[in-house]
């Protein structure tokens, strides 16, 4: 519901809002230019009488003097049949520059407020401001949900770049956009007369009929400082019934041209002051710095529109296409999908197709449509549940837990599969909630809770085999979430290790295909990458890619990965059989969370086996000699110390501050976590100095490292989880 309130107004109004934001940002510059150009008023307490007299000396035919909120004084006169106008130097009363507003500014202003369509356009732009307001409010709630609550609303962002950009810019600019859209709506209401106006000038009173009093003899002009002036209009020449019209910050009225006395006056009303303040806040006239800030914030709108549309399109592409969905009452398998952005639905579609092909009758529905009373023939219910942000239920699962607990119908066996991202604190938290609630209210579980990390096709395929075994049908799930186009990479060299310790491992180096500019611009060909990003390799005979951490950056001119042979591993086998000149198909997947953060803080690199790959890449790229300390575990120093020569060289030239190794097939039988414990004092000091920890390797090693660090950090009152929450503990685990 909330998401729709954000998505549809955003998509519908995107173009309009981009036009309004860009024109508004451009307009915000003019008040700043004006206030820079306006000469500072040198004389303290200069009176309107003195200023007007100076101007009249230079321009005897002066008719009107205006003061802009920027402080610029403009005089209008009429002499020998021609009108004239100029911005005035207050010390001399003479004109210094032309008075007419720039054509560009006027064009922009008419575009901004009415799209050159007069009143129709004003309604359209007001609708745009209303949409902006709605988007700001719904967006704030969505950001709070995404980051896990209002208190964490400024937390570090995770996920794909467009989404992060969208939220980051929103967090910076939402205050300005709220102010601009609210004041815009007020100004439109004021233009159409829905807001009370001030009293305006008082009625013209009878005057003395005499003329010729000097300006210096008019008390109201003598007592009004120029800083309070808005407008002074001189009486029509030779018309004794006319009077001086004075408008100041306090009000407006008439001055007799014979006696010099104030003959009528209206104070500025409360509504008028409100209107003036709102005008100032919206236009920046009289508050040019605020105007510039609002203008800068408005520049975020085009980026948010672009990323917003991108996210919507990406979500649509990922939307499943279901064929042959069976009615709820006829199905033997009920497939419930709890998805926030729609990506989990793609997995559901794959599962539905595979089950249907295996002869099952499947009904697919969102989790919020859960209605167990209708599932008359169901033998099992499969719940595919994503988790939103830090543990919130996804959009299409509203009310599911309540309905799970309610009712007296038969408890059909459940299978729960959680979808999530391990880099979030609450990985698959909602799926856990579902399992807990189901167990509590007596639903039998066919399988224990399983999870799919970051849309991993491998995780899903593995779960599919287990599920198929329970159901009694062979189930080969091949789901590929929006696979990027792959390119052929040719092997240029390989270095082999580990044969002696029965762990054949190789560092494989591939040439980069040339990427012409047009391919850059169209986003095709092999994307740019840095060490720590992933190379997705498509093995022969399987459409499912395997991911390897890159040990080089595009800058290095090659793509390097470390591969060890898994028993029966399809992809690792093919890779290790490559000889220079052979090619594989591959693509890049960003892994932006796993790399040294910017800055000079120390970096602790911990890895074992092929996990050395990205860590070696970080060291290779460390030309700035930032303190990087490596702890590395291998089997034997003589056999599988990957990058052994480079490690020594990098230590000599300062790319690595220290290298500590642990070997498991020697007399000491040490693992990398043992090496950490030996160095616990040094590590504790590095962490105290703000070090970032990057761990790469197998799951068991990562768990051992986390245990060791938990002990090492305990005296400081820190845990790996706390470092993770601060973005100081990155893991690349396989």
């Amino acid at each position: 519901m909330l998401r729709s309130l954000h998505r549809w107004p955003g998509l519908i109004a995107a173009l309009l809002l981009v036009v309004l934001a860009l024109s508004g940002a451009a307009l915000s510059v003019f008040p700043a230019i004006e206030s820079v150009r306006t000469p500072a008023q040198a004389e303290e307490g200069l009176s309107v009488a003195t200023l007007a007299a100076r101007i009249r000396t230079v321009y005897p035919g002066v008719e009107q003097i205006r003061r802009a909120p920027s402080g610029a004084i403009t005089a209008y006169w009429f002499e020998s049949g021609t009108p004239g106008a100029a911005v005035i130097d207050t010390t001399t009363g003479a004109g210094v520059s032309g008075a007419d507003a720039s054509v560009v500014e006027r064009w922009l202003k008419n575009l901004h407020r009415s799209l050159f369509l007069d009143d129709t356009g004003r309604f359209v732009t007001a609708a745009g401001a209303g949409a902006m307001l709605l988007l700001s409010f719904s967006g704030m709630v969505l950001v709070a949900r995404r980051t896990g609550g209002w208190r964490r609303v400024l937390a570090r962002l995770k996920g794909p770049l467009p989404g992060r950009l969208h939220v980051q810019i929103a967090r910076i600019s939402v205050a300005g956009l709220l102010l601009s859209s609210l004041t815009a709506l007020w100004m439109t209401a004021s233009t159409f007369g829905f807001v009370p106006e001030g009293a305006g000038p008082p009625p013209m009173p009878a005057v003395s009929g005499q003329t010729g009093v000097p300006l210096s003899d008019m008390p109201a002009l003598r007592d009004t400082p120029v800083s309070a002036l808005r407008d002074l209009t001189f009486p029509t020449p030779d018309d004794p019934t006319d009077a001086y019209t004075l408008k100041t910050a306090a009000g407006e009225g008439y001055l007799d041209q014979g006696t010099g006395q104030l003959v009528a006056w209206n104070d500025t009303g409360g509504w008028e002051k409100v209107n003036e303040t709102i005008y100032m806040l919206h236009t920046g006239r009289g508050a040019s710095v605020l105007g510039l800030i609002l203008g800068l914030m408005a520049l975020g709108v085009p980026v948010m529109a672009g990323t917003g549309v991108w996210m919507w399109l990406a979500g649509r592409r990922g939307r499943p296409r279901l064929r042959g969905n069976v009615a709820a009452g006829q199905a033997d398998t009920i497939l419930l999908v709890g998805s926030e952005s729609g990506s989990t639905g793609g997995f559901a579609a794959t599962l539905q197709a595979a089950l249907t092909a295996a002869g099952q009758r499947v009904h697919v529905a969102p989790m919020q449509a859960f209605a167990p009373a209708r599932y008359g023939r169901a033998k099992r219910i499969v719940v595919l549940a994503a988790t939103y942000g830090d543990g919130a239920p996804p959009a299409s699962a509203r009310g599911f837990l309540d309905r799970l607990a309610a009712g007296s119908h038969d408890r059909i066996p459940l299978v729960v599969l959680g979808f999530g991202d391990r880099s979030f604190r609450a990985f698959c938290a909602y799926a856990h909630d579902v399992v807990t609630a189901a167990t509590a209210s007596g639903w039998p579980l066919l399988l224990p809770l399983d999870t799919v990390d970051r849309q991993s096709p491998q995780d899903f395929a593995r779960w599919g085999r287990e599920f198929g075994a329970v159901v009694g049908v062979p189930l080969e799930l091949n789901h590929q979430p929006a696979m990027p186009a792959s390119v052929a990479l040719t092997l240029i060299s390989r270095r082999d290790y580990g044969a002696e310790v029965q762990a054949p491992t190789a560092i494989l180096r591939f040439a980069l295909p040339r990427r012409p500019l047009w391919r850059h611009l169209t986003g095709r060909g092999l994307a740019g990458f840095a060490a720590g990003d992933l190379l997705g390799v498509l093995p022969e005979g399987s459409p499912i890619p395997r991911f390897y951490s890159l040990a080089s950056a595009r800058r290095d001119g090659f793509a390097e990965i470390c591969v060890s042979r898994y028993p029966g591993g399809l992809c690792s086998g093919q890779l290790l059989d490559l000889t220079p000149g052979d090619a594989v198909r591959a693509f890049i997947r960003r892994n932006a969370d796993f790399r040294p953060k910017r800055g000079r803080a120390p970096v602790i690199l911990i890895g074992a086996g092929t996990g050395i790959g990205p860590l070696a890449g970080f060291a290779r790229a460390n030309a700035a000699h930032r303190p990087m300390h490596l702890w590395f575990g291998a089997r034997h120093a003589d056999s599988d110390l990957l990058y052994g020569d480079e490690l020594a060289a990098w230590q000599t030239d300062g790319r690595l501050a220290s290298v500590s190794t642990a070997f498991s097939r020697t007399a000491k039988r040490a693992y990398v976590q043992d090496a950490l414990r030996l160095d616990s004092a040094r590590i504790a000091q590095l962490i105290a100095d703000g070090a970032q920890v990057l761990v790469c390797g197998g799951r068991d090693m990562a768990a051992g490292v986390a245990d060791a660090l938990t002990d090492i950090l305990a005296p400081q009152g820190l845990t790996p989880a706390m470092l993770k929450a601060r973005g100081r503990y990155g893991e690349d685990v396989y």
Partner: protein
Amino acid sequence: MKTLLAALALSTALVMPELALARPVTLTTTMNAYGGNPAYLALYVTDAQGAYLGSLWMAGGRSQYYQHLSDWYQATGGNPSEINGITGASVGSGRSLTVTLDLADALFDAGYVLHIDAASEEMRNSPNEIAVPLTTAGAGQATPGRRYIAAFAYAM
């Protein structure tokens, strides 16, 4: 071309039996290329001494801007009933405004003066931009304005 019975608007100011006799008069106001947003114009009649009699036409629909038509506003206090039914759109730079009204014969050759006040957003107020005596002989003669109006003429 707009045809209106403005005689009624004037009748409150000019209580004369001759008002029954009226003729269509076409008022043509041609604007300069003054290069601003469309201008507001107030067309109104005073007697020879400058006392306000009534309004003929108001070009511009938003009452909050009428105070910039300073002379007209001073004379009427911005009273909307003065221009009820005789209000049209503001007139763009370089454009012209043509209004045809049934004007009382008694207005001509009797010392009455037709005035136009003009103003445009963020530009000067130009009260009394035009002041032409209403005479039968003066019909068809163009009068230049001061800032906004290139020429004004009335034709019978």
